[in-house]
Each structure stands twice: as structure tokens, then as C-alpha cells.
């Protein structure tokens, strides 16, 4: 693969006078400045199709006099690193060429930007009703704009009762079955519109953002430590991963080097969280198939791990642990050893459970060949995390773009190719085992020393990334003077993967729907932000 310098040179040669490139060796990142014209989709196509970069996300920012749009791409092979396409245009120009015909993964990013900033993406097939539901919000409301008056939004708004979601299936006898936003048991709020002519789900359309808390907006104008609370708590089942990504972004801006002991302990906490999350998803899968003993056994293990987390870090979901500059708490080597030992014990029980599941035909029948996502579909939608890896799509940021010292650890990123529910379960089980292996390696790598260094905020922009339990997460931060957050952007794995969820749910029977939902293990809170 070409180095970043070569990439910069090639881009300038291909589009002379239109694309300007520069390389930031520290990141390492190559920025390509494009004009807001049809050149943009061409460059995107070149970066993704010809060079094999993965689309990470779109960051829109309203500056004093211009729109600043940054499209972030990363290499999954470590080198050469990151590529960033950037366009700037005056605020009066409210339209940008869409890149989703070239990179389908950008589809939802553009819809979100259109809804929240009021920018039109020329050539995008479907804009409107997305983050702000059209039955409650007027289309012209754009809350992420700097001049947005929050007071307008707070007034009691009445729903537009005439509003109906768009229906696609027009066959005779076709009907839509709404599931949500409040539905059975203990579930997160989301609406699924399932269109059918009888038995099979022909079209599944998740209508999300019922839990939109606008953390990107309310973060603006706040201090770093206040923003950290939002980063940590918007999706609390993976709180540590997101707090870590945010902290790493701040550390990059403020040029802070985290002490080695803190790096190693961060790996320990991150893997403990991943293990706990995966066991939780496995519990959901057992529950969805109605295998109650297995579900109980898995839920015991989840509770065990919650208790281990609380015993180690003081909180069952590891709140208040990660901060820019390190960690708030130093664990003794004995405490780490105790937690690792407990995790090994849980893993042993998980293996016993796995053995039982592999021989339960009633369970396997519900998972095998159900909810299939092919490798090509996963690539097209840019899926991330265990779901992508169950469809044979490589990509784990811990290996691709190592952070927090992961490059020193030896571990596997398990891969399956079937892309069905059972493949997703196997990936979760294998990753859980790998997490425990990494935790065991931690105990041999613990150096004595401090776990945090002071951070003095300085202005700048950076992004931090982690392989969260559900997949790649990117947190972009723009700090202004005095350490005040100017723009905070969260690109969460659930947002990316919900985009592709309908692929798995469509063409399967109604009764498979809860099982497919469980094997995805997605968080609505992480998507809605």
C-alpha cells in the first residue's frame, strides 16, 4: 500500500489544481482538501474502492463564516493510517454533493447532518424524517446550527396526527405491523415497522432516535470534565470504551502522554467491559430463543461480571474511571489479580454453557441460517464490530489502529463467514475468550507507577477512537480557548450497524425477528445519543 506521502502526491496529480493534500505525520493522517463539486464523489470513490480505506464517519462543523465538512477514513492494515477529505464552503451555500452513491456507509451520516444542520446533500435519495421526527418537529428546525434558539424548541409541541411513515410494499393485502416504541418486557425504546403480506417480513424499517438527547449539542460550550460525563453516560453499557475514546481525543489535543501503568489498566478495564457486554448479549440470545435455563445461567454470569467490575472499580458499569490523562483510581496488583481470576472462573462457566448450547438442536435451529448478512452487504454498509466479523469482514481497531498499548498484546480477532445468527454468537463467544486472555496478559505487564498525569487544556482538534464492545467508535473534539468544547462528534458502532439491521431482518418470518434483534446486540441509546 502507498505511504501517506505517495497518496498525497497521487491525489494532487489526479486532480491537479482541485485537490490539495498535506500529511500530518503525528496522527498519521493525509488530508485532501476538495472543492464542493463533483470532484468530491470521485475522490471518495478513489479512496474507498481503489485504495481500500474504510469509511469512519462524517464530521460537520459550522464555523464563523464557513461550513467545514470532514470525511474520515481509516486503513484496517495499520499503515499507512488515516485519510481525511475536507471541504469548506461559505455558510450561504447549503448544498453539498452526496457521497452515499459511492459509499453507502455514509447514507445515515448524511441524513443526520441534513436533519440537524439543514445542509442538503445533492443526489441523496432520501432525506428528512430521521433524528428529529417529522410528526413533532418542523422540517426547517436545525438544532446543531450555532444560531439555533433552544427556547423555541422547548414549547409544548403537539404531534401531527396526519403524519404516516412511508410504506414501500404495495402488494395486495400488504400491511405494516408497528413494534414499539414501547414493547414487550424490558426493552429500549425504538419503533420497528415491519411490512408484510402474511408470514414473512418483507421490509423492516427501524425508526430510531426516540431517545435523542442531543449530547453533541449540549456538549457545546461546556468544559472538558463536563463533556466527559456525557461521553461516558450516553451509552452506559459500554461507558468505559466511550469515556476512553473521548479521553484519548483530549490527550491528543493537549499532547499528554499517559503513564504506562494507566495504559495497561485501561486495557484491563476495557476488556472486562467487553467480556461483560458479550455475556449480556449471549444472555439475550438465549432468552430470545426461549431456552430459559441457559438464559438464567448466562444472566448469572453477567451479574457475576457486574459484581467483579464493582468490586474492582467501585461501579458496576465502570463509571468515573477513565479521565483525560489516565484513570481516577489506581488498582493494586492484588485487586487486578483477583478480578482476572474471577473473570477466568466466569469464562470456564461460559464454556460449559457453550457446550450445552452447541448440542441443543432447538436452540441451533432458531439461529442457523437466520438473519443472514453476506460479506458484500457488510462491506457495502460499512458494518463494524462482531456483526461485521461474523460476516467475514475483517476490521478491529485494536489491531488496525492500535491505541492504549494494544500493539503489545497478542490476541486474535475471531472471524466467521456465514453471517447468520449462529455465526454472530460464535464470534461473541470467541471474543469473550480473547478478552479474558488479554486480561490475563495484563497481570504480567503491570509496571509500578502513577496512573494519571495532569492535563492542561489547550485549543485544538483531534479525534480519539476505540474498538468498543459493539465495534469501532470515534469521538471528534474541537476545543476552543479555555478548554471549552466547540464541537463534539460521536460516531458510535450502533449507529453504523442499525443502518444494516434491516438486511438481516428482511425475508425472515415474524417469529425470527426477536432472535435476529438479540443476535445483533445493538444499543438504541448508543445510536440515539
Amino acid at each position, binding site marked *: 500500500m502507498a505511504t501517506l506521502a505517495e497518496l498525497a502526491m497521487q491525489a494532487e496529480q489526479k486532480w491537479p489544481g482541485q485537490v490539495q493534500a498535506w500529511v500530518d505525520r503525528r496522527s498519521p493522517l493525509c488530508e485532501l482538501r476538495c472543492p464542493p463539486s463533483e470532484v468530491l464523489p470521485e475522490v471518495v470513490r478513489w479512496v474507498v474502492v481503489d485504495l481500500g480505506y474504510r469509511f469512519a464517519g462524517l464530521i460537520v462543523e459550522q464555523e464563523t463564516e464557513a461550513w467545514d465538512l470532514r470525511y474520515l477514513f481509516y486503513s484496517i492494515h495499520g499503515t499507512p493510517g488515516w485519510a481525511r477529505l475536507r471541504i469548506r464552503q461559505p455558510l450561504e451555500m447549503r448544498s453539498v454533493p452526496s457521497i452515499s452513491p459511492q459509499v453507502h456507509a455514509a447514507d445515515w451520516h448524511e441524513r443526520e447532518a441534513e436533519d440537524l444542520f439543514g445542509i442538503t446533500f445533492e443526489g441523496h435519495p432520501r432525506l428528512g424524517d430521521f433524528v428529529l*421526527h417529522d410528526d*413533532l418537529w418542523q422540517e426547517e428546525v436545525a*438544532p446543531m446550527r450555532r444560531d439555533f434558539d*433552544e427556547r423555541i*424548541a*422547548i414549547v409544548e*409541541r403537539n*404531534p401531527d396526527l396526519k403524519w404516516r411513515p412511508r410504506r414501500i410494499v404495495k402488494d395486495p393485502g400488504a400491511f405494516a405491523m408497528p413494534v414499539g*416504541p*414501547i*414493547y*414487550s*418486557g*424490558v*426493552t*429500549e*425504546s425504538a419503533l420497528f415497522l415491519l411490512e408484510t403480506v402474511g408470514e414473512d417480513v418483507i421490509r423492516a424499517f427501524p425508526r430510531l*432516535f*426516540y*431517545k*435523542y*438527547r*442531543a449530547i453533541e*449539542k*449540549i456538549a457545546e460550550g461546556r468544559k472538558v*470534565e*463536563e463533556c466527559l*460525563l*456525557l461521553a461516558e*453516560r*450516553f*451509552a*452506559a*453499557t459500554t*461507558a468505559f470504551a466511550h469515556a476512553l475514546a473521548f479521553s484519548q481525543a483530549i490527550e491528543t489535543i493537549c499532547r499528554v502522554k499517559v503513564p504506562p501503568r494507566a495504559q495497561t489498566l485501561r486495557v484491563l478495564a476495557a476488556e472486562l467491559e467487553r467480556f461483560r457486554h458479550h455475556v*449480556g448479549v449471549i444472555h439475550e440470545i438465549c432468552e430470545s430463543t426461549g431456552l430459559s*435455563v*441457559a438464559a438464567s445461567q448466562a*444472566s*448469572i454470569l*453477567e*451479574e457475576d461480571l457486574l*459484581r*467483579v467490575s*464493582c*468490586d474492582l472499580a*467501585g*461501579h*458496576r*458499569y465502570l*463509571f*468515573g474511571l477513565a479521565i483525560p490523562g489516565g484513570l*481516577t483510581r489506581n488498582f493494586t496488583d492484588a485487586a487486578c489479580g483477583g478480578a482476572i481470576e474471577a473473570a477466568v472462573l466466569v469464562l470456564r462457566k461460559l464454556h460449559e454453557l457453550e457446550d*450445552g448450547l452447541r448440542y*441443543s438442536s432447538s436452540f441451533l435451529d432458531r439461529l442457523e441460517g437466520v438473519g443472514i448478512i453476506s460479506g458484500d452487504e457488510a462491506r457495502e454498509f460499512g458494518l463494524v464490530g462482531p456483526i461485521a466479523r461474523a460476516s467475514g469482514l475483517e476490521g478491529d481497531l485494536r489491531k488496525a489502529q492500535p491505541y492504549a498499548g494494544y500493539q503489545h498484546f497478542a490476541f486474535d480477532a475471531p472471524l466467521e463467514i456465514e453471517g447468520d445468527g449462529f455465526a454472530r454468537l460464535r464470534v461473541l463467544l470467541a471474543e469473550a475468550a480473547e478478552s479474558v486472555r488479554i486480561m490475563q496478559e495484563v497481570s504480567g505487564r503491570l509496571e509500578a507507577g502513577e496512573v494519571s498525569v495532569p492535563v492542561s487544556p489547550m485549543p485544538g482538534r483531534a479525534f480519539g477512537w476505540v474498538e468498543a464492545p459493539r465495534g469501532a467508535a470515534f469521538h471528534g473534539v474541537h476545543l476552543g480557548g479555555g478548554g471549552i468544547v466547540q464541537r463534539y462528534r460521536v460516531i458510535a458502532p450502533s449507529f453504523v450497524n442499525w443502518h444494516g439491521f434491516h438486511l438481516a431482518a428482511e425475508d425472515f418470518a415474524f417469529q425470527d425477528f426477536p432472535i435476529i434483534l438479540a443476535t445483533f446486540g445493538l*444499543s*438504541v*441509546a*448508543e445510536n*440515539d445519543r
Partner: protein
Amino acid sequence: MSPWVLNGLRRGVITTSYPAHQEAAKGVSPGLPASLVPVTEEAGRVLEALCPTGAISLERGEARVDYRRCIHCFRCCRGTDLPLDWKPGYEWATLTTGGLSAAAWPKAFHKSMHILVVDAGDCGACLNEVKQLSNPYYNIHRLGFFITPTPRKADILLVVGPVTDHMRLPLQAAYDAMPTPKLVMAVGACALSGGVFGPSFVARGGVKDVIPVDVEVPGFPPPPLAILHGLLVATGRKPPAPWQAGTAVAGSTRPSSALAG
């Protein structure tokens, strides 16, 4: 016999002895900062400044903690040389001053209660803790508590999250669909005070801004035992948290029509 049945039997009984006895296992609760602790003026000001949600206030030489705002950030114990003590425990639920609780209907919920869980913008943690209530460690079924999917059969509405704008109307609809007598339990700091998210232009400052609340369970998230304590308080089977008398609960007055309704 199916191997799963044997498997389950082999595991034995692990259910907590709470509410008959206190649970002593490690890691069941993160605890809460101690309230009404005498502190120096200087330490008190530091604690006030450290608390990001304004839960700590210095009153007459004591650090007072409003548990409805505490979000478990640990800054009052890890961020200063004069830390506030954190107390273990989980019996945190209180009745609101306007709330009815089971006292109004002594027979109605005493033996069994059906719970409708509504996520009104929760971050996932509170909901996950509610989910844990059904695992064998807590097994709320043994106490006559059942989670129901429909508001028509529900006795108590368990709400988590600050109530986002998009969830306001579905929440109201679920509440309206419940038959009387009915109770509302707000679980977690977000549902009590908006937490770190509300009030904002898309979220309220808690459930009480939309529907009347009877039982409040603080915590971020409250551990399963705290939620269980809330259910027991709602049914009149356990007394509320010891600070009930001392904490004035503002802003949750129940309209008289709901009483009749």
C-alpha cells in the same frame, strides 16, 4: 431428563435472602456519598465545586447530598484530599410527598404487582439493572413481582430516563392506558432530575415533569437491590430510605383528579 434441567439443578439456589436479610455479597452496589456530614467551610466549598450536578450543598456546616441528583461520578471522593465518605447499601427508595404509594390501597398490591417498564431516554444502564431483577440472584418473581408487556395489566409504571421529547407522548399514552389504582416509580437520577441530559431542549428534567411520580429510586444506575427496595416500598412491605423524613421532595405534586381517576 433434559440436560438443561440437570444443569439448572446442579447450579443450586443462589437467590439473595433480601428482603428477609441484608445482602452482604461484594459488588452488589456502588454505594452513595454520605449526606449531612460535618465539614469545614473550605472542604465544603471544594465539594460543592466538584459536584457536576449540584447535588452537594453546604448547609450549616454540613455537606448535604441531594441523592436525586447524584450521578455516581465519584468526584467528591476521588477528586479531593478531603473526600466525602461513600456509604455502602442499597435501600434508597423514597415516597414523594404528593405520591400515594400502596398506603392508599392497602390490599391492592400487597401480594402481587405487575410492572410495565418504559424506557424514556435511558442510557442503557438503568434498563440493564432492571433486567438483572429477573436473574436467579434477585428473582423478583418469588416476591410476587411480574414484568408485563401491556399497560392494561400493569399496576406500576417503572420509568427510566429523563423523558426525551420523542418519548413524552408514548409515556403519557402508556400511563393513561393503565387502570387505576396505579403507581409510578421513577428509577435513576435521570428519571428524578434529568441527570446529565436534562432539562434541555430535547429532554425534560425527569418523569415528574410529565406524569405524577409516587416512588423515587436514586442511583446512576440504582443497583438491582435498590430497584427491588423501591418495589417493596411501593407495596408497603419495606420502609423507605432513612433520609425520607429529612429530604423535602420538591416539584412532584399530584393533581387531585388523578386520585379520583
